[in-house]
Each structure stands twice: as structure tokens, then as C-alpha cells.
């Protein structure tokens, strides 16, 4: 059991996007605003991006791992012409909506999704050619094919469109009266399951991992599944494990609003180090509720609806293999109840305290990944540049500690920070989106240490006025 003395490693991480412009109308904000004004609805539907535009969008290329975020071109990114970028990246992809609807059918174990015959045929053809086709339950698409109009007439059913086109699918409610199982709620849950499954399948394929070798799966997406007696009771992780063919795994969900991925990684690493499990996957699906969340600002600024993608992420944690980056369990930062709630206090708690514990300075960290929300999405709606605010706070604290001079604040932000590139699905933006890039740089030797910092807005649930957060340090393997 000598290996238990060493901290576990993160072997691999993958990320995917599903471009779902037709589903964007079911985001929380559009679902409230569009029915109130047909003119707004028409403008919204007229401002949806094509698949090629979504693929070419540079932040999406950074999210799926094709380019490092520091290699992003100058803004505006929306001006990038389509046609130059590929939907495929090492270990990731951007999946078009038709295929994704087929994937939804493939993971719909309750049989609630109905696909129109034409859509089912198109989706089946596309998914049949997908590199991961053998892992999809393509037979489910045929079983899902049926009368979409009749299905959509059911109680609390949710109509589904491809882009701005006509209805081509529908998701029935799981129960006639349960508000936790309406078609709209289940579409959110199913979309989260499908994106997380897709990311996990890519990871297993890329690393040639035997699915039966994974002992446990921890879900950390923002979505919560449950029924009226236990809203958010879970467990999406085991559903993802089942869908990805992880026959020997069980799983659970970790909830912490947007911060959840880092506690999930820490729990995964702790389980491995304690010898409870040998190989643990951490997965997160996309948040459909956040699609189109800031569409009003986008339309006001003559931008397309930029929140039209669902993200999926997967990472694999296991015992030290002598090569993969180490997750330092002795350097976990947590936002204590007594730490205070101002931005500097939170950053002090999450970023500085772990470094002090290790006897390191901020300049010993090559890359800081904070809340990497894409500013091109947040700024038009008045939410500002979230990562920039975080990096300025971080640099100011570094200067106060004497790690850098005041003159070096700008270069600190530029060289150790990065532009935001994640969709506004907080758990993805809150550091998790940088994990594939961090692993690449730590494996290649371009970086020695990365710190990933996550924050979550607990106060939104009205059970506390506090926020929360957690940070981890990943380090180049010393062997």
C-alpha cells in the first residue's frame, strides 16, 4: 500500500459542447421572456447561430481543447468567419443539434422522448458515423420515433425544435402532476446526462480506458434530479456511469452550486488516497436552464444569441502513475464560514492560505484558473468581465504579500491569468474548464503548478447569506 502515501493524479480530462440553438428557448430566461412578446421571440429566433458559426467561435475551440485560452485571438470573437475550425479536438468535440437529439434518445432510459421520423433518420445517420457510435444505444432512436404532435399534446410535455425550425421532437412529462418531473425539467436533466456521458465516452476512448475499471463516478454539474418528495435528491452520476457502460461503477452527486467540480475532484482524490476506490471519474453535464440567460443584452448589441451550447466535462482520478499531474491534497483551499464575504477575503482564503501552507508564493503558480466566464457573453448584459476582476484581486493580493511589485500587476495578470472562454454555466466556468489545458501544460513541462479556484453562490438558495468556494493545486509529477 506504499502508493497510498502519494497524492493521487488526474490522468485525463475531456470537454465537449453540444450546439443546441433550438433548445435555447427553453433556457430559464427565454422561457419567461419570449412568450410575452412575439417580436422578441422572432428576433431571438432570427439571432440563433448556425452550427458552423458555433464551431468557429474561438472560445468554443478553447473549451474543447483545440487552442489554449491564452492563444485566443483579439476580440470580437463573434467576427470569426466560419469554415476554418473543426468540430473535432483531441478528446473533445462540438456536437450539432440533430445528433444531440439522437444522443438524448440514446440515453433516455424512461422512453419519454419522441423523435419525428425525419429527425430520427437524420440523427441515426449522423450518430452511426460518429467515432463513438458503438457506445451509443442507437436502437433507442427507432423506439423513440413516433407522432411528435400527439406526444406534445400530453400533460406538461416539452416541444423540441432544431434551431429556429418547426417542432421535430417532444419530451413527455415523467408524471402528470409532479412539478419536478415536467417535460421541461426532464429535458434539463436529460441534456445534462447526455453531455456528461459524451464527455466521459470521449475520455475513455482517448485514454483507452476499460470502462469496467472505473469504480466510482462523481457528478458535479449544476443540474439536480429528483421528484416532488426529494427535489435535487440525485443521482445523475450513476445514470451517466450506466449510459457510458461503466458496469462496475457506482456514483453520487456533489452539490455546491458553481463550485461543485473542485469539491468533487477533492473527494475523488481522497477516496483514491484512502484506498476506498482505485479509479474515480468526475463528470459534469451542461445546464440547459442557463441557455439564453443574457440574450437581451446580446440582441441589444446586435450580437447572436451566444448562450446556445451545453458543455460536458469528464476527468479521471487514480493513484500515482508516475507521469500524470498530482492533485495536492495538502493544498486544498476552502472558504471557511468565518472567512468573510468580500472578494479579497474570499481570494485570500482560496488562493493565498494554501500557498502559505505549502511555503510557496503566488509566482510559484504558473496558471491560475478562476471563474473563466466568457466576457463576450457577460459584458453586453452589464455583468462585466468576471475573470479579469478575479485576476486583479489576485494580483493585488500578490503585490500586498510582496510576491510582485505594483508595477508587475499587469504582467502577472497577463502571464498567469487568461481570458474567460467558458459558457456561462457556472460549474464549467468555475475553473473546471481549464483542467484539460492544465494537464497538457503540466505533462509537457510548460508549467509546474496550476491552481484551480471555484466559487459558488450559495445565497441563491436562500438557506444562507454565504457563498462558498474551494481551490486545488495541480503539480507536475515529480517522478
Amino acid at each position, binding site marked *: 500500500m506504499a502508493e497510498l502515501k502519494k497524492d493521487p493524479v488526474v490522468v485525463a480530462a475531456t470537454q465537449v459542447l453540444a450546439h443546441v440553438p433550438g433548445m435555447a428557448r427553453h433556457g430559464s430566461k427565454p422561457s419567461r421572456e419570449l412568450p410575452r412578446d412575439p417580436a422578441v421571440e422572432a428576433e431571438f429566433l432570427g439571432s440563433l447561430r448556425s452550427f458552423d458559426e458555433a464551431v468557429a467561435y474561438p472560445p468554443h475551440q478553447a473549451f474543447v481543447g483545440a487552442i489554449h485560452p491564452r492563444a485566443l485571438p483579439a476580440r470580437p470573437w463573434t467576427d470569426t468567419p466560419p469554415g476554418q475550425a473543426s468540430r473535432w479536438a483531441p478528446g473533445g468535440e462540438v456536437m450539432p443539434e440533430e445528433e444531440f437529439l439522437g444522443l438524448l434518445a440514446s440515453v433516455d432510459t424512461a422512453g419519454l422522448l419522441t423523435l419525428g421520423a425525419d429527425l430520427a433518420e437524420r440523427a441515426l445517420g449522423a450518430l452511426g458515423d460518429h467515432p463513438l457510435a458503438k457506445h451509443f444505444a442507437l436502437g433507442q432512436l427507432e423506439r423513440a420515433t413516433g407522432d411528435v404532435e400527439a406526444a406534445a399534446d400530453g400533460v406538461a410535455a416539452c416541444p423540441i425544435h432544431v434551431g429556429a425550425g418547426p417542432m421535430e421532437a417532444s419530451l413527455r412529462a415523467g408524471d402528470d402532476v409532479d412539478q419536478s418531473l415536467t417535460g421541461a425539467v426532464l429535458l434539463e436533466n436529460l441534456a445534462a446526462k447526455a453531455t456528461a456521458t459524451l464527455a466521459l465516452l470521449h475520455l475513455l476512448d482517448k485514454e483507452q480506458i476499460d470502462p469496467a475499471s472505473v469504480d466510482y463516478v462523481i457528478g458535479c454539474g449544476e443540474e439536480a434530479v429528483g421528484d416532488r418528495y426529494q427535489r435535487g435528491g440525485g443521482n445523475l452520476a450513476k445514470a451517466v456511469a450506466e449510459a457510458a457502460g461503466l458496469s462496475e461503477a457506482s456514483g453520487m452527486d456533489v452539490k455546491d452550486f458553481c463550485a461543485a467540480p473542485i469539491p468533487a475532484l477533492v473527494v475523488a482524490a481522497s477516496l483514491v488516497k484512502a484506498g476506498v476506490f482505485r479509479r474515480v471519474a468526475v463528470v459534469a453535464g451542461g445546464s440547459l436552464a442557463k441557455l439564453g440567460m443574457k440574450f437581451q443584452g446580446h440582441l441589444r448589441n446586435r450580437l447572436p444569441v451566444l448562450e446556445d451550447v451545453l458543455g460536458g466535462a469528464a476527468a479521471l482520478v487514480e493513484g500515482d502513475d508516475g507521469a500524470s499531474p498530482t492533485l495536492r491534497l495538502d493544498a486544498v483551499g476552502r472558504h471557511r464560514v468565518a472567512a468573510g*464575504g*468580500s*472578494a479579497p477575503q474570499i481570494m485570500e482564503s482560496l488562493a493565498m492560505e494554501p500557498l502559505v501552507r505549502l511555503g510557496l508564493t503566488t509566482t510559484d503558480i504558473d496558471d491560475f484558473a478562476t471563474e473563466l466566464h466568457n466576457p463576450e457573453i457577460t459584458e453586453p448584459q452589464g*455583468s462585466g468581465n*468576471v475573470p479579469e476582476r478575479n485576476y486583479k484581486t489576485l494580483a493585488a493580493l500578490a503585490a500586498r504579500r510582496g510576491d510582485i511589485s505594483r508595477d508587475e500587476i499587469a504582467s502577472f495578470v497577463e502571464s498567469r491569468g487568461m481570458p474567460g472562454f467558458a459558457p*456561462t454555466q457556472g460549474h464549467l466556468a468555475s475553473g473546471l474548464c481549464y483542467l484539460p489545458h492544465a494537464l497538457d501544460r503540466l505533462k509537457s513541462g510548460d508549467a509546474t503548478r496550476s491552481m484551480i479556484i471555484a466559487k459558488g*453562490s450559495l*445565497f*441563491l438558495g436562500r438557506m444562507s447569506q454565504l*457563498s462558498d468556494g474551494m481551490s486545488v493545486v495541480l503539480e507536475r509529477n515529480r517522478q
Partner: protein
Amino acid sequence: MLENRYVIALGERDGISGPAIAACAEAAGAKVVFVSTECFV
């Protein structure tokens, strides 16, 4: 400064939290009738 004033304290996740605004307002003599912190990202 805020005696005999009612205050609604709306905080922002990345800025000043609702309870911090409320504490300042109460210290200045206000009666805080509602406190909330919101997330705008």
C-alpha cells in the same frame, strides 16, 4: 446619517454582499427591511 430611513440592501456576488451593506446601513442608523445577495453571471 440614516436615522428614520428604511433600507433595502441588495448585494452583488463579486462586489459587496447584502449583509455587509446591511451592517453599514444599520451602523448609520437605518432600519434594514430586506437583505439579499444576487449573482449576475
